[in-house]
């Protein structure tokens, strides 16, 4: 009898803490829908310059909160990787480098095979290179990591090596005094 009570209590606890699979799926879909619908509404506003004014930093923070909610609820899901990526990018855009770096690092650690891995590493390197105060040791760390990536395009590799060779220069000085190879190549 005692065992039965224990078992029942445990089962009940398990159901309450984890929810059943249908509920979980529904919650997952709901959190995802909250993100995509919000992103769609922001994208629609963006199309019209008059309406784009409605995209305030508060709207971006609302999007971050929705992305965080998904990441917290389903941290192992591949969509959580996209959430972390977007959180990193939005924080950089909002000029919050500490938060941006934390989410970028978390993404690299939890999803080492993430599709946009190269971009995340480059973004982290740039964050330490361009935001004041510069941290050249961290720039070196991320750019060297980038150079080790097997899928890095040849031109990107060349650019990163050139930047690493002149880390004594700030971004602006690098443009002004940097190699003339910059000129005329387009973006």
């Amino acid at each position, binding site marked *: 009898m005692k065992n039965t009570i224990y078992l029942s209590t445990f089962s009940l606890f398990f159901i309450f803490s984890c929810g059943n699979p249908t509920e979980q799926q529904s919650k997952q879909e709901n959190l995802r829908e909250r993100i995509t619908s919000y992103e769609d509404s922001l994208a629609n506003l963006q199309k019209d310059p*008059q309406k*784009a*004014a409605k995209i305030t930093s508060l709207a971006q923070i609302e999007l971050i909160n929705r992305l965080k909610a998904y990441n917290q609820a389903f941290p192992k899901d591949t969509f959580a990787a996209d959430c972390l990526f977007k959180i990193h990018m939005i924080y950089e855009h909002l000029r919050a480098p500490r938060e941006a770096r934390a989410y970028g690092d978390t993404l690299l650690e939890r999803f080492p095979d993430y599709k946009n891995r190269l971009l995340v590493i480059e973004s982290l390197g740039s964050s330490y290179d361009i935001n004041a105060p510069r941290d050249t040791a961290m720039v070196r760390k991320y750019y060297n990591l980038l150079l080790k990536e097997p899928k890095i395009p040849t031109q990107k590799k060349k650019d990163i090596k050139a930047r690493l060779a002149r880390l004594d220069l700030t971004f602006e000085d690098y443009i002004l005094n940097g190699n003339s190879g910059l000129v005329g190549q387009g973006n």
Partner: protein
Amino acid sequence: MILPIVAYGDPVLKKEAEEIDQSYPDLQKLIADMFETMYHAKGVGLAAPQIGKSIRLFIVDGSPFADEEDDEPDPMAAGIENFKKVFINPIIEEESGAKWAFQEGCLSIPGIRENVHRKEKLLITYYDENWVFHEESFDGYAARIIQHEYDHIEGVLFTDHLSPLKKKLLLKRLGNITHGAIQVDYKMSFPGGKKPRMI
């Protein structure tokens, strides 16, 4: 007289500009030249550092933002048709409201336009071209133009508001501007040494 506009990379654009007083030589001529330069380049604002003078002066004329008659009224453009002013020794006393995104460009950084987030409203004190003191509030596009130009006299460019990755991705285009490897339809001077190339 149309003056050459200095391009991205010129140290004068990164320097905090100095206040001036009424003894500043040929100020009225300088202001007239700045308006002529701005209109020629089809700009809505021009700060003195952009013509190589590190002084706290900028001019604005937001009338190109005014609504066309058949357009829906844009609340951000209210009053912009008469927004032509000279700001000498301005101080932004206060900025308020939520930050909003707007695609900005700059005569010193031709061909690049990016979204920049800035606050909605501001309170500014300044002297006009007759050395009359003003304290005024602005919002919408007028505030946006002022904030952009005010940044210039603080040594800040709109690209400084972009995310590092975005700025890094613009590296080559910014390099091309610095070194004059671009085509513009107004007079420019390039710190990287090339002579201006007009189209």
